[in-house]
C-alpha cells in the first residue's frame, strides 16, 4: 500500500482524536480541504449513530434541572450521573464523526473548568455541558461566556450564587477575568475584581428548580467601574450583562483565548504571528470561534507543526482505541476510565478552575510514560470480549514475522518507519522464532507488535 501522505496524517492528528483506517480512507477520497470544511461545520455532519447510542444508554445526559434535583435526593444517583457524563465524553472522542467539534468541546470544558466530583455538581455539570459548552463550542464566544456566567454549575462551583450586596464573594469575579477572559496580565487590578463582583451580585440559583435566578434585592445598585466599563445606578442585571459583553470583546481576551487555542492546536510555544492573526480575527468578528479556527488552520504555523504536541492521556487512550477500532464492553469502559485515573486525566476531575494543562511540561515525566506503557499492555492483553478488538484481522496461519508486521501495519494504517519496522520484526523473531507462525502464535505476536507500536516514541506525539 502507498505510504500515508504526511500532510494528511498531520491534519488527522490535529483535527481528530487519532488516525485510523476509515478516517484516512475518507480523507483521501474527499481531500484535506473538503474534510476540514466539513469539520468546521459540524451541524452538517450526521452523528446520529453516536447520539442515539448515548440517548439509549445514558438517559441522564438529557435530564432537566428539575429532574436532576430529584435525582440528587437518591443516594448514589449523583455519582452514577457523573460517571455517565465521563464515559459519554470518552465515547464521543473515539466515535463521533464531528471530531473537531469534540476537540472544541474539550477545549472549552477545560477553559470554563468545573470540578464535577461533589454534589450537586455531579448532576449540574451534565446540564452545563449540554446547555453551555456544547451549543456554543464553535459559535460565539460572547454567547458562551453569558451562558457560563448563568450556569448553575458555575454559580455553584465558583460561589457566585452567594455573591450579595451585603456580603460580596469575589471568587467567580476574579476567575472570570483571570481565567475566562482577560488573562492574569489582561490589565485588571484588585479593585476591578471587587467591582466585577459588585456587578454580579444577585446572580444566583433558584433552589426551587435549580435554574439561574437574578435576585434583585441581592444586587448592588450603586454605580460601578471595571477598567473602561462603567455602570450607572439601578442597572439591575444589565450591570453584569454589559460587563460580560465588555470582557468578551476586549483585546486582552482576544489575545488570551487565541494564544490558548494556538497552544492547543499547534504547539506548546506557538509563533506570535499566528497568535496575532487569530486574535485579529477574534476582534474583527467579535469572537466568532469558527472564524478564528479558519484563520488558525490556514496559517503556515499550523502546517509546519507536525509531531510537536505530546499526547495528553485522554488523547493517548482515544488514539489507541481509534487505531485499533476498539469497541469496549461496559466493563471495558469502566476499566479504561479507572486507568485514566492512574494517568491523572479523568474527565471533569481537575479540581482548580484553570482546567487540565494543555502543554507537555505538566504531562511528560517518567510516571506518565510508565502509566501509558502499562495502559498499552492492558489493551493488548485484554480479551476481545472486553475491548472489541478484532485480533483475527491479522491472524493468518503460516506467515513469518516480517509478513505479520507488514500485515498489522496495513490493517491499522500505522505509519511505521523503516527502522521501527526492522526493530519490531527483529523483536517478533526473538520472541516467536523465525519459522512460519501457527494461528495461535500469530495472534500472540500481533498483540506484541501492537504493544510495541503503542509504546513507541512516535505514538506519543501528534
Amino acid at each position, binding site marked *: 500500500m502507498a505510504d500515508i501522505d504526511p500532510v494528511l496524517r498531520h491534519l488527522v492528528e490535529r483535527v481528530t482524536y487519532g488516525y485510523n483506517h476509515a478516517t484516512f480512507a475518507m480523507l483521501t477520497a474527499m481531500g484535506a480541504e473538503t474534510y476540514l470544511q466539513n469539520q468546521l461545520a459540524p451541524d452538517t455532519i450526521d452523528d446520529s449513530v453516536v447520539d442515539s447510542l448515548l440517548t439509549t444508554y445514558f438517559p441522564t445526559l438529557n435530564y432537566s434541572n428539575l429532574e436532576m434535583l430529584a435525582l440528587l435526593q437518591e443516594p448514589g444517583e449523583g455519582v452514577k450521573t457523573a460517571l455517565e457524563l465521563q464515559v459519554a465524553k470518552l465515547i464521543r472522542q473515539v466515535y463521533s464523526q464531528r471530531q473537531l467539534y469534540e476537540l472544541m468541546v474539550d477545549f472549552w470544558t477545560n477553559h470554563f473548568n468545573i470540578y464535577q466530583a461533589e454534589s450537586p455538581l455531579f448532576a449540574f455539570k451534565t446540564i452545563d455541558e449540554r446547555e453551555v459548552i456544547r451549543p456554543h463550542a464553535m459559535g460565539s464566544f460572547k454567547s458562551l461566556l453569558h451562558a457560563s456566567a448563568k450556569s448553575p454549575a458555575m454559580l455553584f462551583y465558583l*460561589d457566585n450564587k*452567594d*455573591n*450579595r450586596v*451585603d*456580603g*460580596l*464573594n*469575589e*471568587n467567580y469575579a*476574579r476567575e472570570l477575568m*483571570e481565567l475566562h477572559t482577560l488573562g*492574569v496580565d489582561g490589565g485588571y487590578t*484588585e479593585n476591578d475584581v471587587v467591582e466585577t463582583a459588585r456587578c454580579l451580585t444577585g446572580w444566583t440559583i433558584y433552589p426551587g428548580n435549580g435554574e439561574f435566578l437574578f435576585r434583585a434585592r441581592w444586587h448592588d445598585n450603586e454605580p460601578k467601574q471595571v477598567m473602561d466599563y462603567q455602570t450607572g445606578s439601578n442597572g439591575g442585571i444589565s450591570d453584569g450583562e454589559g460587563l460580560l459583553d465588555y470582557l468578551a470583546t476586549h483585546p486582552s481576551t482576544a489575545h488570551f483565548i487565541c494564544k490558548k487555542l494556538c497552544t492547543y492546536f499547534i504547539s506548546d510555544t506557538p509563533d506570535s504571528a499566528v497568535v496575532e492573526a487569530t486574535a485579529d480575527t477574534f476582534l474583527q468578528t467579535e469572537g466568532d470561534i469558527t472564524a478564528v479556527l479558519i484563520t488558525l488552520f490556514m496559517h503556515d504555523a499550523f502546517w509546519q507543526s507536525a509531531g510537536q504536541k*505530546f499526547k495528553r492521556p485522554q488523547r493517548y487512550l482515544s488514539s489507541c482505541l481509534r487505531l485499533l477500532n476498539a469497541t469496549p464492553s461496559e466493563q471495558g469502559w469502566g476499566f479504561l476510565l479507572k486507568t485514566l485515573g*492512574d*494517568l*491523572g486525566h479523568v474527565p471533569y476531575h481537575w*479540581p*482548580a478552575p*484553570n482546567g487540565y494543562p494543555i502543554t*507537555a511540561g*505538566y*504531562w*511528560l*515525566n*517518567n*510516571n*506518565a*510514560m*510508565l*502509566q501509558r*506503557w*502499562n495502559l498499552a*499492555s*492492558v489493551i*493488548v*492483553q485484554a480479551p476481545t470480549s472486553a475491548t472489541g478488538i478484532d485480533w483475527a484481522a491479522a491472524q493468518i496461519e503460516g506467515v513469518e514475522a516480517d509478513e505479520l508486521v507488514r500485515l498489522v501495519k496495513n490493517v491499522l494504517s500505522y505509519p511505521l518507519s523503516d527502522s*521501527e519496522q526492522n*526493530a519490531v520484526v527483529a*523483536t517478533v523473531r*526473538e*520472541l*516467536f522464532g523465525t519459522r512460519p507462525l501457527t494461528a495461535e502464535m500469530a495472534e*500472540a505476536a500481533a*498483540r*506484541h507488535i501492537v*504493544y*510495541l507500536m503503542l*509504546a*513507541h*516514541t512516535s505514538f*506519543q*506525539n501528534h
Partner: protein
Amino acid sequence: MQRRQFIKVASVGAGLGLAQGSRLVRASETSTEMNTLLVFLRGGADGLNIVTPYGDPDYFTHRPDIAIPAPGEVAGALALDSMFGLHPSMASFIPLFEQGDLAIVHAAGGTHGSRSHFDAQSLMERGINDKTGVFSGWLGRYAETLANAYSTTFHQVAMGDAISLSLLGDAPAMAVSSIDAVDLILPSQSSGILKQVLASAYSGSSPLAQAGQHALMAVEEIQAADPAQFTPLATYPETAFGRSMMEAAQLLKSSLGCHLMTFNLGGWDHHVDENQQLTPLVEELADTLSAFHTDMGPLINNTRVIVVSEFGRRVAQNGAMGTDHGSGNCVFVMGGGVNGGKVYADWPGLSSDNLVLGDLAVTTDYRQIMVECLLAEQPNLDWQKVFPEYAGGSPLGLFTA
C-alpha cells in the same frame, strides 16, 4: 534562645570562577545528607484560623461569625503562647511543638502582592517575585548544589502524578504517584527483550527519550530497593495525602537515596462555609505530619518538613461564612534541628490601619525560612543562586547550627 548571626558568605562559585549556571559541588562530603520536604497547601490556606492570633482583639472584630474561639472557651484554640493558639483539631501537633520539633512562622509569605492562585503558586514554587524570572523551582536549584542530585535516580521525588514546579531544575526529578505504580506491566512474553526494545526506542536526549529512560531506571531501582518492606510505625490518615507521606517515609528509609521531596494537599480555597471545610483538613494535616514524625524515628533528626500555602486569606470574613484571597500566612517547620516550641512572628496587628488591602501584612519573606533551612545543611551555600531575587532579611534563628 540563640540568635544566629546572618552572614552573607562570598559565593563559592565565584571563588572558583565557575561559569554562570554551572552546578556547585559541595567542597566536602558531610556524614549524613539531610532530607528536605516541602508540603504545599493548594488554594490559599487560612493561616488566621489555623494559628489564631487570639491575643489580638481585632481578630474577633473582623470575624464575628467564623473566628476560632479563644483558648479555654468551647471549641477553643489550643494555646501556643499568650498571643497565638492552634486550631483545636490539630491536637496531634502539640506534643511535637512542646518537644521542640515544630516551629511556626506567622505573618509570613510572598511580597509580590499577587492574589491569583496560579501566579502566587508559581512564584512561590520558583522562589521569585517577578513572573518573567527564572523558570525553575527553588528546590530544583538547591538540588543542583548537592553531589548526588544528578547521579541518584530518586534523589528528587515529587509525590504525585506530575513533577512539581518547586523541583524543576537541571537535575532530573521523579514523579511517584504511588510506590505500587512504579511498575512496568508487559505483555506476557519475555519481559527482558521488550525492556531492551523500549530502552533502545527511548535512547537519546529529547525530553520524551529522557522520560522513558527515567521510567525504566525507576522500575529497576524500586524493585531492587523494595521500599514497601518498611512497615509503617505509625497510623496515617487514610487519605491521598496521608498515603503519600506514609510512602515517603518508606522511600526515605530505603536505599534509593531520596532526599528532596514535594507533596500536595489541596482544598484550602474556603470562600464559603470555611470552618466546616477547614476542620477536617487541618486535622488531616496535623495527624499526617505527626504520624510521619513518629514513623521516621531517628531519621527525623536529619529531616525537615516545611508546610506553605500560596497566600493567606482576608482578615474580614465575607458574606458566605468564608474568606477571600489574602496575603500574610502561617508556615509550619517540623523536624530535626528545628528550634521549635515557638511561634516566630513580627506581628503587624489586625487593626484596619495595619492591614494591606484588607489583608494581614507580610513581615517575614517566606524565603527567609527556606534559606535558614538550607544553610543548616550547607553553611557555605551560596543561597542567592537558589533565591536570585532575594536580598536577605533579619535572621529568625529557626534552625540550630
